[in-house]
């Protein structure tokens, strides 16, 4: 349209009426996933913690606890690494809520809400975008682990399978933080509440040590702790001893959380002023 007068160009875009056929929920969600990727491209700093945290956790915990708990750090690493993968990714899911809460306070959500699209697609799309963070974090844990001497019995296939299970469960847990992000007023309060959930779930677990030496009441909690169940499944997959029941147990909590909280999130999102 070069060469036209400004008014004529304006008229030309305004005259192009007619709406393309409505697109489905999946397509909407993919478009918002694309938005999440673009945001990572333009604000790469947001990946900083997704890169640094796994390196720090893996190196620190291996050398702090390794000698005392398993004789050598290298031996401890075989036990610890699946746990650190889970801990890193579970911590990362918290950012879903904080990012959403910040995002919601901006005018752009008014536009999204006034569009003829699937209501929840902005949120689910952002959660899909988080897969990149989770994959990056867990891949870094594995690479650092291998450098330090981690040798999974199940090889590359096991690592990939572990990462897929981790991503699926992280998506499920993500609904907790999405709901908090929608329900609370400020990113700061989302963070505070998120830690209240995450601290007991990640530390009162089998991430760092086997639960057999814990007192009975704590062991009872660890046995039903969804984070611990996920760690058990990952240990199984990476040591090539996983059973379907282990994997099934790891998936119960994320599935339940999704079934309960996705509708809650939808209601909260619709009510949000």
């Amino acid at each position, binding site marked *: 349209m070069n060469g036209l007068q400004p008014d004529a160009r304006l008229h030309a875009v305004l005259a192009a009426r007619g709406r*393309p056929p409505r697109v489905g929920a999946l397509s909407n969600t993919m478009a918002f996933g694309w*938005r999440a990727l673009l945001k990572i491209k333009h604000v790469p700093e947001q990946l900083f913690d997704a890169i640094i945290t796994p390196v720090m956790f893996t190196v620190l915990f291996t050398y702090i606890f390794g000698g005392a708990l398993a004789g050598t750090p290298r031996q401890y690493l075989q036990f610890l690494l699946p746990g650190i993968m889970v801990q890193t990714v579970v911590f990362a899911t918290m950012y879903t809520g904080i990012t959403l809460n910040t995002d919601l306070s901006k005018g752009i959500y008014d536009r999204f809400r006034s569009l003829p699209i699937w209501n929840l697609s902005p949120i689910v799309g952002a959660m899909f975008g988080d897969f990149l963070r989770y994959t990056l974090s867990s891949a870094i844990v594995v690479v650092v682990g291998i450098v330090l001497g981690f040798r999974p019995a199940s090889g590359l296939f096991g690592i990939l399978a572990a990462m897929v299970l981790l991503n699926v469960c992280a998506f499920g847990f993500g609904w907790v933080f999405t709901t908090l992000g929608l329900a609370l007023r400020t990113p700061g309060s989302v963070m505070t509440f998120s830690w209240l959930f995450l601290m007991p779930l990640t530390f009162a677990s089998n991430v760092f040590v086997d639960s057999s030496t814990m007192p009975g009441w704590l062991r009872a909690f660890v046995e039903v702790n969804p984070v611990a169940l996920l760690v058990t499944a990952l240990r199984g997959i990476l040591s090539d001893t996983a059973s379907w029941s282990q994997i099934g147990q790891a998936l119960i909590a994320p599935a339940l959380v999704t079934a309960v909280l996705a509708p809650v999130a939808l209601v909260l999102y619709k009510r949000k002023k």
Partner: protein
Amino acid sequence: MSHPEFAIESEGLVKHFGKTKAVNGVDLRVRAGTVYGVLGPNGAGKTTTVRMLATLIAPDAGRATVLGHDLVREGDALRRRISLTGQYASVDEDLTGRENLMLLAKLQGFRGIDVKRRADDLLEAFDLTDAATKQAKDYSGGMRRRLDIAASLVVVPDLLFLDEPTTGLDPRSRNQVWGIVRALVNDGTTVLLTTQYLDEADELAARIAVIDHGTVIAEGTSAELKASVGSGTLHVNLRDPAHRERAGQLLTERLGVVAHFETDPAALSLQVSDTARAAEALAELPRANIPVAGFSLGQPSLDEVFFALTGQTAENKEENKERAQ
């Protein structure tokens, strides 16, 4: 009924936030294919009204038909035909101008090459081609506003809500936005625009609703609103400010209304209902040795209308509100 006469018909729309009645019974009738101005100071309920009509929040009471659709029951169908440019830039600041438009094109069903083509056409029409690959946060106020409006036109809506489209813009950007609004209406879109600028409503809107405290306190064309205040205002500029007191007395005697002393020490004005008597009274001034530098007899400005309706000027109201906060 695919082309109803009225794009918007609302009756008694109410929205409360806690104990605050943000909107307290708004009735509007917006003729299709026109610009309708909703005029009022900050906090009058303009934005809440727009957000209800654009399906963002549900009204607590009242009903409305927008483009023939029931606002509450047919929100989904309605969203396919309306667009909203909110008061605060509703673009993603981290994304570039082109990416913002491409995202909205994808969401609304454009595919493949058409996504980028539509984005680029809009960028060009809104004079943003040079800034296509810049992040929106680096845009100037005027550019951001244009991108915001372009984003509402990825699919050209039948009804566009513009919430204070020129607040904070410099005069040049404001003129550009006005040009866009006129072009839109020419091409058949109905525009509902809120503003706190009286000249903006005067300039663009075929009809105007004046809103204060969540209700419509006056409605009509700009000329009707002005006429409701009186036939017009006589402005007189004197050669010598020292004569103003005497001139005021004389004109008040002849016309039976109070003279208003303006900020300019040589200027005064009176609301007049009878132009012939005003002309006679004016002729008395030189006879009483009060030289007149100039005078005008015109319709009242919307500012004066607002003053007459609410007892305060729009600007004063702003200040009072700020002080109260």
